[in-house]
């Protein structure tokens, strides 16, 4: 699956693919959070979710701009964000999962933030100066994201019977998408061997400890590692991403020269 999809590009540059994955994670989750606009449970919490979303969109801009430069065919951040179909996206399945209820959004954010914090902390030491600089900026943002999402996991889990039930359900439903965060492929291996990327497989115990500590405080049960759904980073996405992109891309695709 990986090889066929990557072969779609004439010259699959591993670094380009790698940065695209990072940028797409930020872009897709950022847009998902944006979908809460005018639908948040409370004004303050909605602004908080959108602040996190805007942080992620900002990260996506830095990363996709860099990806376009590495690719060298003239694609800028907008071309990469708005003119690719779902098959061209390289984000993790976890981040594209629909918002669901507030518990689903918070648990999705928490599981990803816990990973992202470890990932970008290590990416600061990348031999690629541009990625290292982006990581240094991003780590501060993610530190707050994790504080926010972990705080809400505890509040919901250790809250009322209803909030606990919903949060545990969200955790059980989303757990199957967590394995992909640590599933490395040949793109990872090349980029890690070059000292540029982070060995995601090695992050699993750090992530697990971070997650387990919060779940214990939240009186939630860590689901078992059974079958994991994998495929987002090689372009094999769920139907949900197609719907999301249709919404996200309609304006620039309908009016290619629109400016504002």
């Amino acid at each position, binding site marked *: 699956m990986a090889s066929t999809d990557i072969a779609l590009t004439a010259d699959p540059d591993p670094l380009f693919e790698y940065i695209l994955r990072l940028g797409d994670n930020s872009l897709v989750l950022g847009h998902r959070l944006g979908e809460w606009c005018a639908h948040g449970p409370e004004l303050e919490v909605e602004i908080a979710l959108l602040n996190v979303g805007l942080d992620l969109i900002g990260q996506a801009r830095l990363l996709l701009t860099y990806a376009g430069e590495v690719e060298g065919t003239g694609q800028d951040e907008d071309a990469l964000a708005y003119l690719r179909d779902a098959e061209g996206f390289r984000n993790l399945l976890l981040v594209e999962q629909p918002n669901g209820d507030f518990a689903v959004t918070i648990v999705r954010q928490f599981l990803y933030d816990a990973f992202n914090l470890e990932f970008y902390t290590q990416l600061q030491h990348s031999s690629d100066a541009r990625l290292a600089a982006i990581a240094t900026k991003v780590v501060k943002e993610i530190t707050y994201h994790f504080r926010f999402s972990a*705080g809400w996991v505890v509040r919901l889990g250790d809250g009322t019977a209803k909030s606990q039930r919903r949060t545990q359900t969200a955790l059980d439903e989303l757990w199957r998408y967590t394995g992909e965060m640590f599933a490395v492929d040949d793109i990872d291996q090349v980029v890690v061997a070059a000292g540029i990327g982070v060995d995601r497989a090695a992050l699993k115990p750090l992530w697990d400890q971070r997650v387990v500590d919060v779940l214990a405080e939240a009186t939630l049960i860590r689901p078992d590692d059974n079958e994991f759904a994998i495929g987002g980073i090689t372009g094999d996405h769920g139907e949900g991403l197609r719907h999301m992109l249709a919404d996200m891309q309609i304006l620039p695709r309908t009016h290619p020269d629109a400016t504002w």
Partner: protein
Amino acid sequence: MLQSDWPLYEVFIRGRNGLSHKHAGSLHAADSKMALENARDVYTRRAEGTSIWVVPSVEITASDPADKAAFFEPTADKIYRHPTFYKVPDGVENM
């Protein structure tokens, strides 16, 4: 849980080091930790602050507008309390 169940907090922001905290507004939150985070997200998203205080609104004891005359008007004719009766020697700056 509805927001109407959440207590009100007053938010004070310090813009820069050396300045004092100023009242920025109020918000609802379930607890003080959430109030602090909500204040960060609602009141400092345009880089307005370097420090935040949140105080439960019920903890603030305020003067009664009905006491205005007794509280504040007696000071109106006591201009000698203003430090404007001193001669400042030549060459002294920043007074």
